[in-house]
């Protein structure tokens, strides 16, 4: 029974209020759970199949690309959010329904008004103080310090003996700035360093490349390994190709490094199309892919997509930031708080164009990957690109090769202890590792039947014992040299008459 409590002449049944609220909480949350778990999933399923009312059917239009499970998953999130909001709402109701609180509404109103005013005054004071701090900081002379990204690969033992390493990782961090590039999404912004140079087109410098009109042109496409993650300009695959070809040929050689971090093979093909379209026809085209194609599929759950598809799509699909947020972000207070408070405590998800990392942003977190089906699709897409390039090669008269890049978990190299750790790290992500293995097996099997100009580099480091890998997919300059040597063995250039003689390396 409720106990009567006298409050300023009103009688409130204290126990009754609690009981009533508890009943309301129970009923509302129960109804929500029944509605969310039994009713809505059935409605979503029927609407997905187009069997519901027309206005509900119209709400779901992505059947071609988005599986039903995605919609149900989204609804699950809404369910939990609803449940949390409901619980929060009832906590607030429990507190404010107290008779004491109700009586204090005028005082609460005054308090809120005062707090708001104080917040505005503090904001103003803080902005002025931040302005002062930013101005002072800008005039303080700062010592030049070489700071990398702090990733484990920067501390691989190979770099301990390289005097350029600290400078390289520092510049590598600085080159993370991207620019939009038509049709392929992104390329690095121009950069002039001592170990990394990127021109206005976002193309990394190949030392010694002589690109006069009559030179022998080689276009090298690929992801971050071709771009040269972990290597200064002189240590990229393109640089070693340039040096090797210069020895094999008379006359100028121009190797252009079209590689870019996180590029999949389709982006390479598009870049090739753009070069051909502009009349820049190469003599030889080399594709060096594999890991990026697979990782992109692993992230999105389907083949034929660029990496970080969800983030790219979000840039189009979300509306521009509200003006209020933009204003906040342009304030000195924001700048100060971002640098002093936010940076040390937040981890940014792997940015677009960063090298593949199996532990982040993966589709498998929320879905089960059908490895055989997905690997079939990846291989089909990859060889689809091969066929397109074959047709272009016939039409434009260039030679081409597709190289499947090596990864640390495959091949017969005797791994050092550091490399063994990398392999284990990769194998810990079971789904990505299974997918990588499956795709490589299928690609090698498929290529032996139909694709003459395809070459798997999986075993390129077999028999080489020192450390080559800096992470699961990238190698040291020494590794790049071995890769370039193997490529040159596959593509032997006759430098006397300028005609390429292609020998299939068995």
């Amino acid at each position: 029974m409720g106990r009567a409590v006298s409050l300023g002449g009103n009688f409130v049944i204290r126990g009754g209020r609690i009981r009533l609220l508890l009943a309301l909480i129970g009923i509302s949350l129960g109804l929500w759970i029944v509605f969310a778990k039994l009713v809505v999933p059935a409605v979503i399923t029927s609407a997905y199949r187009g069997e519901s009312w027309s206005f509900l059917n119209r709400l779901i239009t992505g059947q071609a690309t988005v599986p039903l499970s995605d919609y149900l998953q989204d609804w699950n999130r809404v369910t939990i959010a609803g449940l949390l909001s409901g619980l929060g709402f009832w906590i607030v109701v429990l507190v404010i329904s107290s008779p004491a609180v109700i009586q204090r509404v005028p005082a609460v109103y005054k308090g809120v008004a005062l707090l708001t005013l104080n917040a505005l005054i503090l904001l103003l004071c803080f902005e002025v103080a931040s302005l002062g701090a930013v101005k002072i900081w800008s005039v303080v002379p700062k010592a030049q310090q070489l700071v990398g990204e702090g990733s484990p690969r920067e501390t691989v033992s190979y770099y301990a003996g390289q005097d350029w390493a600290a400078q390289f990782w520092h510049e590598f961090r600085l080159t993370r700035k991207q620019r939009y590039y038509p049709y392929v999404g992104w390329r690095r912004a121009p950069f002039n360093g001592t170990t990394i140079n990127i021109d206005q087109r976002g193309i990394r410098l190949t030392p010694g490349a002589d690109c006069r009109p009559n030179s022998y042109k080689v276009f090298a496409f690929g992801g971050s390994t071709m771009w040269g993650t972990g290597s200064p300009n002189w240590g990229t695959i393109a640089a070693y190709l340039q040096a090797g070809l210069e020895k094999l040929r008379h006359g100028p050689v121009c190797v252009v490094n079209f590689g870019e971090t996180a590029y999949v093979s389709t982006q390479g093909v598009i870049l090739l199309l753009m070069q051909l379209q502009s009349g820049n026809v190469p003599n030889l085209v080399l594709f060096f892919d594999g890991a990026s194609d697979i990782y992109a599929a692993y992230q999105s759950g389907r083949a034929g997509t660029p990496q970080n598809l969800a983030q790219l799509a979000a840039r189009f699909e979300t509306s521009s930031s509200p003006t209020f947020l933009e204003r906040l972000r342009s304030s000195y207070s924001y700048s100060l708080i971002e640098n002093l408070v936010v940076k040390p405590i937040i981890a940014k998800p792997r940015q677009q164009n960063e090298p593949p990392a199996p532990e982040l942003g993966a589709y498998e977190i929320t879905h089960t990957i059908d490895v055989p089906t997905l690997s079939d699709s990846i291989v089909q897409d990859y060889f689809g690109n091969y066929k397109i390039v074959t047709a272009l090669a016939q039409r434009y008269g260039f030679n081409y090769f597709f190289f499947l890049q090596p990864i640390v978990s495959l091949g017969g190299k005797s791994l050092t202890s550091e490399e063994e750790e990398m392999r284990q790290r990769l194998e810990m992500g079971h789904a990505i590792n299974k997918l990588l293995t499956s795709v490589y097996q299928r690609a090698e099997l498929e290529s032996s039947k139909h694709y003459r100009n395809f070459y798997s580099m999986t075993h390129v480091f077999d028999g080489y014992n020192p450390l080559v890998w800096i992470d699961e997919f990238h190698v040291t300059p020494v590794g790049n040299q071995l890769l370039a040597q193997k490529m040159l063995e596959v593509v032997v250039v006759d430098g006397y008459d300028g005609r390429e003689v292609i020998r299939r390396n068995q």
Partner: protein
Amino acid sequence: MTNYTMAVLFAVLLMWIVAWNLRSVKVRQTLLLFASYFFYSTWGIGFLLLLVASSLLNFAVGSLLRRRLSISYLWLGVVLNVLLLGFFKYLPPILEVGGTGSWQYDLARYIIMPVGMSFWTFQGLSYLFDLYLEEEVDPSLVEFCLYMAFWPTVVSGPVCRLPNMLPQFRQEPVLSSTNISAGALRLIQGLFMKMYLASLLGSGLTPGEGVVAGFDQVKSGWGGIDVWLLGIGFGFLLFCDFAGYSHMVIGTARIFGIRVPENFDRPFLSTTPSVFWTRWHMSLSFWIRDYVFRPLAATRRDRWWSYVALVISMTLFGLWHGAKGTFIVFGVYHGLLLVMHRLGQRTKQRFPVRLPRYLAVFLAWGATFLLVSLGYILFRANDLSEALSMFRSVFSPSAYQHFAMPRNFYMLILVFAIGYFIVTAGHSVLLSWAARYRKAMSERTEPAEGLWAMNFTRLTLIIGALVDFFAVRLWWWLAPALSILAVFVGVAIYAQKGVITVTPFIYTLF
């Protein structure tokens, strides 16, 4: 924090608010117990069952002790608790010695210690000891289970004592603005220490430049300065992490009117190792003092035995953290420090050294701070050989020319340490000025002119008045300031598509 964890926390808070509105003590306690069990079950139903089993076991042994105070019952309780803790905490590391592939190793992988087990086992033991020492405690089963599972403290303490908690479980609940204000302030302080300061020290200004990298990623050997700063840095990291956690726990309980024992009291201002252990992880160090050291020391009257008892107690303190050589050596090291301090005191009495008081205090503080910091190397090193290698660097003069860490690391630790002492000292000074201002105001009998004639300067008077003004109106400026900060941080996280990274509390591992 996942949606699920948030939902659980919301539900627990909801249950607690409801419980606080209930008049029946038993129903309220039952609901609080249910909320605590619900919270704990999120780590696994199996863990919850163990907690319940441990509670029932201790309650049963306690009932026997209440009927008849017998040492054999006490030993029965101690042995059962130690066996349970030993099985989950100490057996797996012993089994793992067999190496990968052995059946022992495989077995060890199946034994997972329930979260907070070391804490609630010690709480159970303290109940038995208190009964044996004839403390007046007569909990019902629900009260005892609530004491063992009390959700703010069940994960990592502070280690509570039943005589302190029981009256609070029974009292009429009061939601007072004083408690809410004090609790919320502690909660915010804890969040700041854990989420900002500990993260900053752990990961550094940029990744790989913090204390964690200093212990885990240095491959070329440490320099002498590196080791000292790593010790100091880890001390502060552990302090921010664990004291931050303790603030959050104490604050949460305080909001609802329950006072949980303190765990830290400005430990880095200690001027002797003995004082340090009355300020660092106080709930555990007092537990060890009351239930291990004192009974052990009382068994013999020889002075040397009290020293042995000290070393044994501190070794047990180290061992409490886990069956790892580094923890045991950490305990022995502090035991020896305490013994040396006592011997030093005796020597000082016989051969007094006259130093200016401030210099003596400064030297005592400096020596204690450095020796305690060196001890953290033992606590944090990944194994004994790493600890040995680091100690070698400390005692090798040539190692002081070698620097293994990035420059930002040295800057961070030095700025942090100096900043900590400035803030701590500044805080004390400001509070004292505010207190003097209040005293002056309360004693004032004449108009304001009389105030200036009092025994402090105008400046301190003005500052004291300001501090008092802001302290009295704390939430009028703190709430808006925190709201502004929260908005900016939220916008920054949203804009950078980032997530707040919070490493688990270090003491949840124990």
